[in-house]
Structures are given as structure tokens and as C-alpha cells.
């Protein structure tokens, strides 16, 4: 079928629209969202930068295969709700992905316009479509028939399970998501700050699944509250494990149990999940002193540093490699810099010292130089012994990575793992029949969109196994 003629002439040469931001001075003191989102005028310009390629490489590069070309065309025509409907064919989470997806590595990296100019700002356009539909949420309150197919259990409520639920319920499966914590969303709820992903957005996109008939059970730890075998006995015909990589790595240096030393997970859980930034209006406290050092260079490090800064602490990120090796989303690094967070590159902690009450007061660091490339292809940092120095500090956050959450694996020896990660075959199936896995529990720490890719693949595999149909769609 030939595409209908365009109602406008693409203009890729127009400058890529900059996402309007809250003023850096203001945002360094509030939990309000940093990025304000495009104006309708900007959307018009940005959407018309898209060439509407005959072979849209962006769609191929998006792990969810969102029909980017088509939703952008709708935006260019000011058909905002229709743009949202196009995205919904593949994803009910444009509000989340439009904000936190590492689009520079996926769709935008593949955009043809980017070969000559800056790529089309696909992520921000996706976000606009989401926010626009959100303002008209009432129209989305469709009522759905109750699913009647086989029962499927999804363990963990992170992005991997959420997208799997969306696919499975559309195929008429009775889907239940079991979550250990009291709130839904996985890292989206406990890790990523409000100022990057407002909680209403997350809640509303999850509410959409609820509206479609997905059951959510919180306060349920698979392996503790019930075993996988018990879930099978209760009639679940397939189980997907999307339990994430929640186990924080420790620095393994003297003094790391001093008061005031946190893992990023604890620091962020206190602040995001338990809302310690509202203390004492919220009951969970967090200790943020006058000077904070955050160790690490990924998304967790940026998030912890930006919270510490917002809570009034002079904040430095200590990273053992250089700026180009930082693993966080580019946008977050820039925002952190704008907000006044300092970076000490090529430096690592070697010890922490406390006062007589056991509160951390100094961090001893060592400088690094870059040596030969390691197995990740990046040049490995090598310590310079003579460079040891101490810095006064009263809060230290270790954001040096996570391993898969081991709780379920520990009591389910049939699940084969390697270095804590659950092993799966090419269909996403684990060593246990009818038990699938994906996301961070399989990959170690990864990204929202790759977790969703896995969740989608597992949903397909579950559908194939339970329906007997080899391929649907």
C-alpha cells in the first residue's frame, strides 16, 4: 500500500529543537521535573525535520519497533491524539520512554537526518505525544472485556514485566504482576528521581494496564511469599521473571559501614520510594550533610548526586575513568553539570575515615591514569600510588553497579545462573520449563528499553508456547 502524500514539505535543515528546561538555579532546589517538554510550535518544526524515509532505520533501531515515522507524521499534521494511538500499537509507556530511554543509542542514533545534521528529537516528540494524550486521559478510559485465556504470572513490576503484561493481555491472557515492594515500577519507582520521571506519569501509564485488566499484587516476594512451584499449582501456566538487578555492589574499602555512607540503592530508595526529600512530612529520614561525594559514573551516580545537590549539599562525582567513559544518559550528565555538580575524573576512593561517633568525615582518594584497554574495550584505570589525598566529606554514596537480585534464585536451585544472572535460551526460557526471564536479572545492569525488549520477546515466546501458534501478527 502506497503511503498517502505528505501534507507538508520536510525540512531537516531546521535546527533540532532544544528541550525547554527549568532554570538550573531553580531546579537545583526542587523536586519538580527538569525537562518541560516541547511546545506545540516546537513539535511542528521538529516533526517536519523528519524525512519520512521509505525505509525508516529509526523504527528498526527502536527495540520496541514503535512506528516512529508514522507517529511523527501525525504530530507534523497536528494530529496529536492520533500520534499517541500509533505509539500505543507497540507501547503504552511513551511518557516513561520519552523521558528515560537512552534514545541516543537507539532510534536517534539510527535516524538518517543525523548523518548530515542533528537527528530528529524522537524521544522528546514521543514524550510530547504522551503528555498530550495524558491531558486528555478521560478519552482513554475505555472499558475492556475481562481476559479469559490462560493465567500468566510476571514477577517484578519493572519495565520488563510491564511491557510483557501489555502484550499478553492484548492476547487475552489473564496476567498477574507480583511485586516485592509496596509500589509498582521497579527502578522507575525506587531508582529514577521524580525530577526526571514524575510519579504521576508512571502511575498513569501503569493505570492503563490496570484498566485493561492486568492484576497487580504488591508486597509479594516470589521465593519467599510463595515459591514458583506454588504459583504453578495455583494455575499459572507460565511465569516470567523480571526481578531486575537490585543487589548493590559494595566498594570493599575500609570504613564503608560508617554512618553517612550509602549505596546508591539505599540513598535513592529512601528519597524516591520513601520520599525522604519531604522529611519530616514524610517519616523516612536520610542523612545529607554539607559535602557529598558520589562514587561512580552511571545513571545511579548522576541521580544520587543531583538529589544530594538538591538537598543542599555541595556535591562531587568521583569517577575512576574520564568524562567520555561516563555511562549515564548524555542529557543527565549535562543537567548535572548545569546544576553545579563537580566532577573529579580519574580518581577512586581507597578508604573512609570516621569521627568518634562513627560518622564518616574523610574520604581518601587516589588518582588514576588510563592504561591498556580491558575486556570492555575501554582503557582500564591504573592507580598512581603517590597521589593519595584526603577530602573532608559527610555523605558518601557508592554508585558502582548492581548484580541480579538473588532472593528467588537462592530458593529455586532449578534455575541455572551464571554470576548471579539467570540463563535463558533463545526463546527467553530458563532452565525451568514454562519459566522465562528477561531484563536486568538476565543482563546484569542494563537499560529500560532493553528490559522492555526482553519482556516483549518473552511474552511472544509464552504466547507461542501456550497457544501452539508459532508466529502471531
Amino acid at each position, binding site marked *: 500500500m502506497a503511503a498517502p502524500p505528505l501534507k507538508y514539505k520536510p525540512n531537516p535543515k531546521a535546527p533540532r529543537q532544544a528541550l525547554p528546561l527549568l532554570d538550573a538555579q531553580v531546579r537545583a532546589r526542587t523536586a519538580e521535573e527538569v525537562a518541560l517538554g516541547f511546545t506545540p510550535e516546537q513539535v511542528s518544526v521538529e516533526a517536519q525535520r523528519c524525512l519520512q524515509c521509505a525505509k525508516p532505520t529509526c523504527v528498526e533501531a527502536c527495540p520496541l519497533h514503535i512506528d516512529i515515522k508514522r507517529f511523527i507524521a501525525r504530530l507534523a499534521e497536528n494530529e496529536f491524539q492520533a500520534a499517541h494511538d500509533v505509539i500505543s500499537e507497540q507501547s503504552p509507556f511513551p511518557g516513561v520512554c520519552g523521558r528515560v530511554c537512552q534514545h541516543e543509542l537507539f532510534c536517534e542514533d539510527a535516524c538518517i537526518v543525523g548523518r548530515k545534521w542533528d537527528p530528529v528529537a524522537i524521544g522528546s516528540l514521543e514524550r510530547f505525544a504522551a503528555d498530550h494524550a495524558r491531558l486528555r486521559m478521560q478519552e482513554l478510559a475505555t472499558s475492556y472485556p475481562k481476559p479469559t485465556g490462560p493465567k500468566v504470572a510476571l514477577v517484578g513490576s519493572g519495565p520488563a514485566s510491564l511491557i510483557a503484561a501489555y502484550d499478553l493481555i492484548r492476547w487475552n491472557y489473564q496476567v498477574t504482576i507480583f511485586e*516485592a*515492594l*509496596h509500589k509498582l515500577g521497579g527502578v522507575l519507582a*525506587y531508582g529514577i528521581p521524580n525530577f526526571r520521571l514524575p510519579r504521576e506519569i508512571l502511575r498513569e501509564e501503569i493505570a492503563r494496564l490496570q484498566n485493561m485488566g492486568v492484576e497487580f499484587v*504488591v*508486597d*509479594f*516476594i516470589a521465593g*519467599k*511469599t*510463595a515459591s514458583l512451584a506454588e504459583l504453578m499449582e495455583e494455575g499459572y501456566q507460565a511465569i516470567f521473571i523480571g526481578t531486575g538487578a*537490585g*543487589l*548493590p555492589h*559494595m566498594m570493599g574499602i575500609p570504613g*564503608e*559501614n560508617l*554512618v*553517612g555512607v*550509602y*549505596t546508591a*540503592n*539505599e540513598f535513592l*530508595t*529512601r528519597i524516591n520510594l*520513601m520520599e525522604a526529600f519531604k*522529611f*519530616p*512530612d*514524610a*517519616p*523516612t*529520614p536520610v*542523612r545529607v550533610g554539607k559535602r557529598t561525594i558520589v562514587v561512580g559514573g552511571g545513571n545511579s551516580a548522576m541521580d544520587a548526586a543531583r538529589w544530594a545537590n538538591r538537598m543542599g549539599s555541595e556535591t562531587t562525582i568521583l569517577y575512576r575513568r574520564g568524562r567520555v567513559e561516563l555511562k549515564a544518559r548524555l542529557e543527565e550528565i549535562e543537567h548535572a553539570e548545569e546544576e553545579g555538580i563537580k566532577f573529579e575524573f580519574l580518581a577512586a576512593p581507597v578508604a573512609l575515615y570516621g569521627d568518634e*561517633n*562513627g560518622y564518616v568525615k574523610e574520604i581518601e582518594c587516589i588518582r588514576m591514569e588510563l592504561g591498556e584497554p580491558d575486556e570492555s574495550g575501554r582503557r582500564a584505570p591504573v592507580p598512581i600510588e603517590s597521589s593519595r589525598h584526603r577530602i573532608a566529606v559527610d555523605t558518601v554514596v557508592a554508585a558502582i553497579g548492581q548484580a541480579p*537480585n*538473588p*532472593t528467588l534464585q537462592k530458593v529455586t536451585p532449578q534455575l541455572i545462573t551464571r554470576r548471579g544472572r539467570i540463563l535463558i535460551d533463545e526463546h527467553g526460557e530458563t532452565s525451568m520449563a514454562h519459566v522465562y526471564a528477561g531484563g536486568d536479572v538476565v543482563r546484569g545492569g542494563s537499560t529500560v528499553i532493553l528490559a522492555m525488549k526482553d519482556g516483549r520477546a518473552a511474552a511472544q515466546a509464552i504466547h507461542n508456547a501456550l497457544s501452539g501458534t508459532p508466529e502471531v501478527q
Partner: protein
Amino acid sequence: MNRVLAKRELAPLVTLLEVEAPRIQRRWKAGQFIIIRPLETSERIPLTIVDSNAERQSITMVIQAIGKTTKEAVSLEPEALMCDLVGPLGEPATMSKGKNVVCMAGGVGVAELLPVAKAFHQAGNRVTALCGARSENYRILDAELKEAVDELHWATDDGSFGFHGNVVQLLNSLAGPDTFQEGHVIGPIPMMKAAAEATRGWGLKLHASLNPVMIDGTGMCGGCRVTVGHEVKFACVDGPEFDAHLVDFDELTRRNRAYREMEQESLNHKCRVGLDIH
């Protein structure tokens, strides 16, 4: 949401709550705990599972109201819904059989000791329980303990009942290096530390059930870390029970004090949102 079925005051500021929790009731073992959020606005706190009732599909917890969240918990009346309750968490208590076992507890720890003492007894050990209270009217679960163990002794700080002194002094008055082969201790940190010191060098394997500050209780945050024999452990998943002779109790003391002033502030604070209404 879990329904409160019954509530009973056991001693001043110590309250028993029985709460519906069918799945936990079926699976829990002595030594395990739960995490609750009494109200939608509460923090998460850990509590030991003290007992369960299959017919009523319930579990029992005993709470000492010492701060904001424990006060919120004991303010729940029968038929009220507890906002969140998750478990069973942690590893069950270590059990052996055919041994002379001493079980020691102080304060609200006496309630936490009950299921462990019972389990030791049922596993075929001879169990002596040494329990401490501030004074006679602070003793809790006396009848239940008496029924569960072979021998029960009380120590009170003011001498109003039983031995005059603390549990460790009571232990020293009753026992020596070879009296017991195994033991379990639960209660305030100074008491657990003293029990560990008193029995160092005895032929006694002593398990201590630790109470560090916890948040998620699933091994995700590392806030509950404790040092045991120079190794860092996450008490919510590796414990809460550890070899008492290897625990760094001083570090645990410091870490448990980390939020003292803020906890006091939280207790005295009236939420601004709430004030507007009245």
C-alpha cells in the same frame, strides 16, 4: 492490605497484634520477620513473626511502641486494614536436636524469642529460657513461654520478680562453660553483646538475632549491613541471625543510632498537610 483481627496490650507500651496473612501463615518459620507499613503514609519497619493461626489464617506480632511508626502500628484497631505487610523475610533460625539449649531475651525480645524457643523444643532439645524485664509488670508471654520450654527463669532490673539483675548476670548465676551447647539471644544490643562476651570461650554456639535499620528487607539497599567475622553481611537476607561471637556489636550500635535526632523530630512533627484540616 491486611486486616487486623485482634489486639491485646501485654505490658506498658507493648502490644500484640494478630493480622490476617494467609500466605505468610502457611510458610513462615521461627526466626523470620515481616516488613510493615501500618498506614499509607508510614515508613517501612521490620517486626518478628511471633506466632500464627492456621484456622484464622493469621500471624501475630508483638510491638514495642517506641517511635513514630510503631506507635502508628499499635494504633490500629481490630477490623482496621494494615496498609502493607510483606514476608516472610530473612532466614529461619538455626535448629539442632538433642542438645542443651539456652534461649535468652530481654524486653520485647522475649516475644521474638518465643517461636525460636518453641522450635528448639519441638526439634528435641532441652530448652532453658532466660528472660529479662524492667520489673514484674513488664513481663510478657510468661504462660506461653512456660508451656514452650523446659525451664523458664525471669530476671528483673528492680528485683520485683525472679532474679534481681539482668539476663547475662542470671546466666552467669545458673550456668558455666559446659552447661549449654547451643544458644539463641535476642534483645537490646548491649544485652546481646554482653551475652556474647560472657560466653566467649564457653563450649557454646551462640546465635544472635540482629536488629539493624532496614528499609526494603529484600537485599536491595544494603542499609541493614552488619559486620560478622570481618565480612559485610546484609542482615535482611543473610540473617537476621548470626554467630554472636563474630558480630561487631559496636558498629551495629553506631549504625542504629544514625537517625536518632531525626526519629525524634519525626515523632514530634505534625504533618503540615494534616494540620490544615483541623
